[in-house]
């Protein structure tokens, strides 16, 4: 479809270039800045339209925009363009992961031991049930079943943060959704690191990679995160608290960490999550504690979800894969809601169930993790990880809606109804 427009343009250009020698050669690919702008505007428009007319979370619109214009449907965003936009996606995911890391409040677990029980139950049950489903019902090998469980066990930090922000939700259900998401992310990253070694051990006879790769990922991410944190805190200490200059320092140090992580082939999501955790735990003088990311970082998040939408493997869809993914999501939902129903004290059961519903999203981090693992052994990895990728496909659309529904049902969202005595 794109060719019908481009081909006559190219021939016209080629004719002109013979006479107008200042013209550059016909541009074969779109400039990255132009692509960035297009993705932003298209994602924004679809997200806003769906939000206004159907009341859906905007994230769904961004993902649908990516899917529509991506390689699977219209093909306007090519695979090359996706690769070109990847640094922007990494930056966006990095900032969101850093924010989730900053919100990981381990102290709360010790002030409320019931939460320790509920988060452990969520992590443990999710991993075990998904692993068992993938191993025995789908028939994956132990290594790929573990990889599937590691990738899908946690909620989606980026989706949860965006949905909470969009709904302006505040309260115990919201706070616990964020806590479970952050702790689940930490657990899934640990599982992911271990699984890297397991996959190497199963698919390669070279034991060195099985040992060193997980260490490289863990130590590398920690080192880069540590450098980023140290730099951010050291520079920020000389600046006024909550100043714009501190915001720039925070974002710049985060981008530096993203860049170094990409250079060292260390997962960006893990590095920036660790940087967030370190920023929250090492900041004893509250230097950056109150410094918030600029509103603009949500623009990057739009790009992230358009790219995630375009990266989803719709073209590989089969009914069997779809059913298996649905089965995985049911098992995962049972694990999470079951864990929350069993524990999570100081909150009534219906609200705990809502927390379980709110942590259902599965999105960018899972997709990126799956691609990281699949890239190790491309010949088998992509097909072996079809299951988590299709689960992510389904949850890209259902996850934000479930999270929003949980927040609305909890009564913690800002209400636009002026007559109801809510928020005017």
């Amino acid at each position, binding site marked *: 479809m794109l060719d019908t427009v481009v081909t006559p343009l190219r021939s016209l250009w080629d004719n002109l270039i013979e006479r107008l020698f200042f013209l550059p050669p016909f541009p074969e690919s779109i400039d990255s800045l132009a692509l960035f702008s297009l993705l932003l505007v298209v994602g924004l428009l679809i997200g806003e339209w769906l939000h206004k007319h159907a009341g859906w979370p905007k994230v769904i619109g961004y993902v649908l925009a990516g899917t529509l214009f991506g390689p699977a449907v219209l093909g306007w965003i090519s695979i090359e363009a996706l690769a070109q936009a990847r640094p922007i996606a990494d930056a966006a995911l990095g900032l969101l992961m850093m924010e989730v890391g900053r919100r990981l409040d381990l102290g709360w677990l010790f002030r409320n031991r019931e939460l320790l029980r509920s988060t452990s139950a969520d992590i443990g049950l999710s991993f075990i049930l998904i692993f068992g489903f993938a191993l025995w019902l789908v028939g994956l090998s132990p290594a790929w079943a573990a990889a599937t469980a590691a990738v899908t066990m946690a909620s989606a930090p980026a989706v949860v943060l965006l949905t909470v922000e969009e709904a302006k939700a505040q309260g115990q259900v919201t706070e616990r959704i964020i806590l479970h998401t952050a702790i689940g992310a930490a657990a899934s990253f640990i599982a992911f690191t271990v699984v890297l070694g397991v996959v190497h051990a199963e698919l390669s006879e070279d034991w060195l990679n099985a040992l060193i790769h997980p260490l490289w990922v863990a130590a590398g991410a920690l080192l880069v995160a540590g450098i980023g944190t140290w730099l951010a805190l050291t520079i920020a200490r000389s600046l*006024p608290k909550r100043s714009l200059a501190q915001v720039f320092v925070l974002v710049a140090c985060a981008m530096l960490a993203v860049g170094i992580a990409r250079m060292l082939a260390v997962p960006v999501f893990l590095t920036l999550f660790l940087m967030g955790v370190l920023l929250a735990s090492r900041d004893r003088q509250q230097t950056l504690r109150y410094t918030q990311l600029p509103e603009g970082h949500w623009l990057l998040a739009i790009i992230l979800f358009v790219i995630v939408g375009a990266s989803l493997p719709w073209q590989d869809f089969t009914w069997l894969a779809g059913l298996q993914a649905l089965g995985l999501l049911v098992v995962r939902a049972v694990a999470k809601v079951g864990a929350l129903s069993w524990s999570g004290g*100081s909150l009534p059961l219906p609200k705990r169930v809502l927390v379980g519903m709110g942590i259902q999203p599965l999105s960018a981090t899972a997709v990126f993790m799956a691609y990281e693992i699949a890239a190790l052994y491309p010949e088998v990895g992509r097909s072996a990880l079809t299951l988590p990728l299709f689960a992510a496909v389904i949850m890209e659309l259902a996850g934000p809606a479930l999270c929003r529904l949980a927040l609305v049902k909890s009564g913690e969202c800002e209400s636009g109804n002026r007559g109801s005595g809510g928020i005017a």
Partner: protein
Amino acid sequence: MNDKPLGEFKDSAALSLGVELELQLVSRRDFDLTRAATDLIGSLDYDQRYGEIKLEITESMIEISTQPQPTVDGIAADLGGLRDTLRSHCERHNIQVCGGGTHPFHHWPERRICPGERFNDLYQRYGYLAKQFTVFGQHIHVGCTSADDAIWLTQALGVHVPAFIALSASSPFVDGVDSFYQSARLNAVSAFPLSGQCPALNSWEEFREHFGFLQACGIAQGIKDLYWDVRPKPEFGTVEIRVCDTPLSIEQATSLAALAQSLARWLLRTRPALHTAKQAFVARYNKFQACRYGMEAMISDPVALCQQPLKQSVANLLESLSEDARALNCEHWLNPLRLAVADGTGDAAWLRARQDKHGNLNDVVREASDRLMRHSAQSPEKMR
């Protein structure tokens, strides 16, 4: 309109005390106000031994109220018990509680009205004022043995409103800026149509007639609609002093209760002449002076036709109350007030000093919250 009958004045033990404190619920992440009250109350596992913990108009507020107590030490014990109960429950919810008359930097449009018919009615009636009413005060009830005494005491205490304002002032910051006031909280209260002073009424009968008049005119439905600085509370059998900011510590709140009890005893014992009609002309000015300047206020005397420095008159008053405070066994609670008057220190000055030190208001709230939650040297059990 659902008019609530005034009912009879329920006599209570002379000079018995009750204290209500409106407290701030803040996020541990950034120390801004947060939506937490209904969740907190909903999960409260508490047998009300120290008094009640209740919702207030917005979700970022909570009210604690002690049991009626004959002594100030009893009030201290209840407030300590309520503070400890709140601390443990708030820790489980990952929030903190803070004192102070205003939250220094919250954004009032973000506040949420608590569920409930009364709160919704208030929101519908007063609109945005209901959200701006996210300010935090201390109310002190003093028991009276007769309705006429309660009306007399209401008028007599009215003269001392500037002293209570200045001694409790803890709201210098509003919307993230220094208001220049020592107590900016009362400016939010002043916007309500039934705020201000009790009119010049001399007996319970006159009060009944006045209240009936307000009901007939459709101005007030119940006694709760009267946001007066000092008002009688017939169902409790008390007079309620409502002008204090919530102090930054339980101990300061207890000292203010001691002042109220000693002052009420002194007033009822000495029965000074009241010039209610003349006082009405200067009351608003004197209140402004105390809110704006605290102890540095100049208070107009409508009888002597001059101005007096509030600092001097409060120091004299505290001296005059010594005998009554000793009789009530609460003089040790007046000493911190004497010290604050002499040194010119107070909660508003403390908050400004923390702002000067940190350069941001998040850290000010963090430290203020720690200050409220700190255990006092004397445990409530010992004080009982």
